[in-house]
């Protein structure tokens, strides 16, 4: 164990003396944590609407003002014809066209029914779907208003109405940051952990100092532990700063659930990750190779973890990939504990899986380490 003490001393000195690495560990993550949530907001709002009003009646005016005051839509402009409106869609100024045909007001009263034409740029399907929904809802509300104006109550049998009451739990104000910040924090810890750890070992390979270590009586496990422990501690530190300083002070996120539980999971997660870093370092001969491999993994980890896009929309095979991605689980757990206050009994499955990851990744790393030396 005395040897381990010396190894750890050495690692910490080296890490804290590396002026290029320190900002990568302690500054870049937090800058990202500050900028990413600002940018990564895909709540559907500000839908640009172009209106083709061929009726120019008080009804159409009323409908338009109802739409523009709804908060969802931004008036991109009026177009004289549908084709003009379509051009606005083509050049990206509008997402949606509403055409109010001539005689809308007159025909509505006279014929009891009138059509409105809506065309939506559906390249972004989700935005289009929601936009269509919002607009239909506004129109339907407007419809009821008119009906009330014209028809005295009780004169006809009112249509059955289902009132929808929706409530949003755990994040009632639908604050997007609450969702993103914990997830991004996970990605940052992941990068620092796996990436820095892999690079660090490969650096010793490249510099040739690993040969010097290999002729000393140091045991493999001591060397490996000497590399893992510092990055485990650094991972913990980065997470702590991110959670208690950035998330709490900047975004006002206070974990609902047990912080202890969160750290328990983090501890296991870091072991799994460092195992991955170690595994990469056993394959790579140069820092460059380690970087490309780590980069490839991190890119997939990030995009297929449910951080930005929901896992539920993925095809089966992609879902399987997401399920063998350790980041997926930690993001899930972080959100569950911080936002929902889930407790250990809710997380048994996650704990089991992550322990499995830790065992498999470290096992593979050690097995391959032996093979290569």
């Amino acid at each position, binding site marked *: 164990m005395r040897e381990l003490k010396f190894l750890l001393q050495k690692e910490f000195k080296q890490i804290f003396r590396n002026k290029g690495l320190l900002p990568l560990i302690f500054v870049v993550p937090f800058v*990202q944590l500050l900028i990413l949530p*600002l*940018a*990564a*907001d895909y*709540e*559907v*709002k*500000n839908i640009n609407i172009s209106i083709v009003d061929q009726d120019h009646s008080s009804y159409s005016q009323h409908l338009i003002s109802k739409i523009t005051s709804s908060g969802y839509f931004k008036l991109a402009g009026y177009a004289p014809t549908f084709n003009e409106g379509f051009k606005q*869609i*083509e050049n990206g100024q509008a997402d949606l066209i509403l055409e109010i045909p001539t005689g809308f007001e007159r025909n*509505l009263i006279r014929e*009891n029914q*009138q059509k*409105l*034409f*809506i*065309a939506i*740029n*559906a*390249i*972004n*399907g989700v*935005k289009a779907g929601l936009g269509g929904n919002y*607009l*239909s809802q506004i*129109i339907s509300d*407007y*419809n009821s208003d008119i009906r009330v104006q014209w028809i005295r109550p009780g004169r006809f049998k009112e*249509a*059955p*109405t*289902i*009132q*929808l*009451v*929706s*409530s*949003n*739990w755990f*994040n009632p104000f*639908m604050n*997007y940051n609450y*969702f993103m910040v914990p997830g991004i924090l996970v990605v940052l810890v992941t990068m620092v952990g796996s990436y820095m750890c892999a690079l660090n070992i490969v650096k010793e390979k490249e510099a040739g100092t690993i040969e010097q270590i290999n002729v000393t009586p140091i045991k493999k496990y001591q060397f490996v532990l000497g590399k893992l422990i510092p990055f485990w501690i650094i991972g913990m530190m980065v997470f702590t700063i991110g959670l208690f300083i950035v998330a709490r002070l900047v975004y006002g996120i206070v974990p609902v659930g047990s912080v202890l539980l969160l750290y328990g999971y983090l501890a296991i997660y870091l072991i799994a990750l460092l195992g991955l870093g170690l595994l990469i370092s056993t394959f790579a001969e140069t820092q*460059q*190779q380690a970087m*490309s491999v780590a980069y490839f993994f991190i890119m997939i980890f990030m*995009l297929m973890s449910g951080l930005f*896009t*929901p896992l*539920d*929309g*993925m095809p089966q095979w*992609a879902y399987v*990939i997401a399920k063998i991605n350790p980041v997926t689980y930690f993001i*899930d757990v972080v*959100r569950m504990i911080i936002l*929902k206050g889930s*407790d250990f009994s*809710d997380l048994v499955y996650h704990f089991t899986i992550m322990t499995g990851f830790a065992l498999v990744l470290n096992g593979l790393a050690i097995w391959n380490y032996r093979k290569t030396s």
Partner: protein
Amino acid sequence: MKQFLSFVKKEFFHVFRDKKSLLMLFGMPIVQILLFGFALTNEIKNAKIVICDYSNDAATQQIINKLEASKSFEVQRVVSDHFQIENSFKSGDIKLVIIFPENFNRDLLHLNSAQVQIIADASDPNAANTLTGYATNIIRSYQQELRSNSSAPIQIVPEVRMLYNPQLKGATNFVPGVMALVLMLVCVLMTSVSIVREKERGTMEVLLVSPINPVLVIIAKAIPYLLLSVINLVVIILMSVTLLDMPVNGNIVLLFVESILFIITALALGLLISNSVESQQSAMLISMMGMLVPTMLFTGFMFPIENMPVALQLISNIIPAKWYYIIVKSIMIKGLGLASVWKETLILTIMAAVILVISFKKFKIRLE
């Protein structure tokens, strides 16, 4: 000219003899376009929901049947016990709970009004919004069916047309973005190490002492990657069309010309990085870490740029991928011509020219 050709030939040797990089050059885009083209989507399918039915009558049964039939939902269970809801949310597998109160059908028939409660797990606000929207739609459509029986007066019927992507597929939006992302990263990454590698290996010293024009050195470096990127582009477009069912509504030649313009911009950026750094490692670090996040964020395919704070919106303008993304969407999906994308094209051209000039200027004719 002979000098230049011999240079280009040498660069091709470098590229083709480095099997690992070659694998990365071709493998990465294919894997990424497949992976992300299929997997990245904001759609939600098979979301697990719980229905809490206290009424258990004909109406609720019909609505539940409709919910079950939707591909968006997977009705996990129908319970008549409010108690477990919170636990279901906390254990993480349930995204939405729909509660029908007692006497739902009776209220609906006799009072003409009944209530449904929808509770969403808003820890993911986006999913919550989308799923609430889906559920609302389904319930509304049931309501419409009821109404069509009793003809109400003064009815406005909105007729909705979904342009370009009637099935609302996620790929339509994501594939052009992934194209921009992949081309950008591969081009920048490959070229960014190319010049600095010669600096590190010492061959640059010999080249500098030779009478060769530095501009030739730089351009020769980019040519093999330009060619390889065009091959990549063909593969990407073929895959998008055949596997991801992407349309090519516009002029394919125009699409290629624009893509080559974008590739040149990306290559120029890579060369600039390579000229500015001292080691392959920092070149890679900059091109991977420095390019990935901004390109992903500011291209606009994942996160709408109009939602961002003004400062970030301004930053997004200097990201070439943003402009390319608009161009690809316009040509591939909207089927537009150059007349509609000349502005974006001009911006990309200026970007490419400026970056190239800077990297020529940055090329050091001496060491240090």
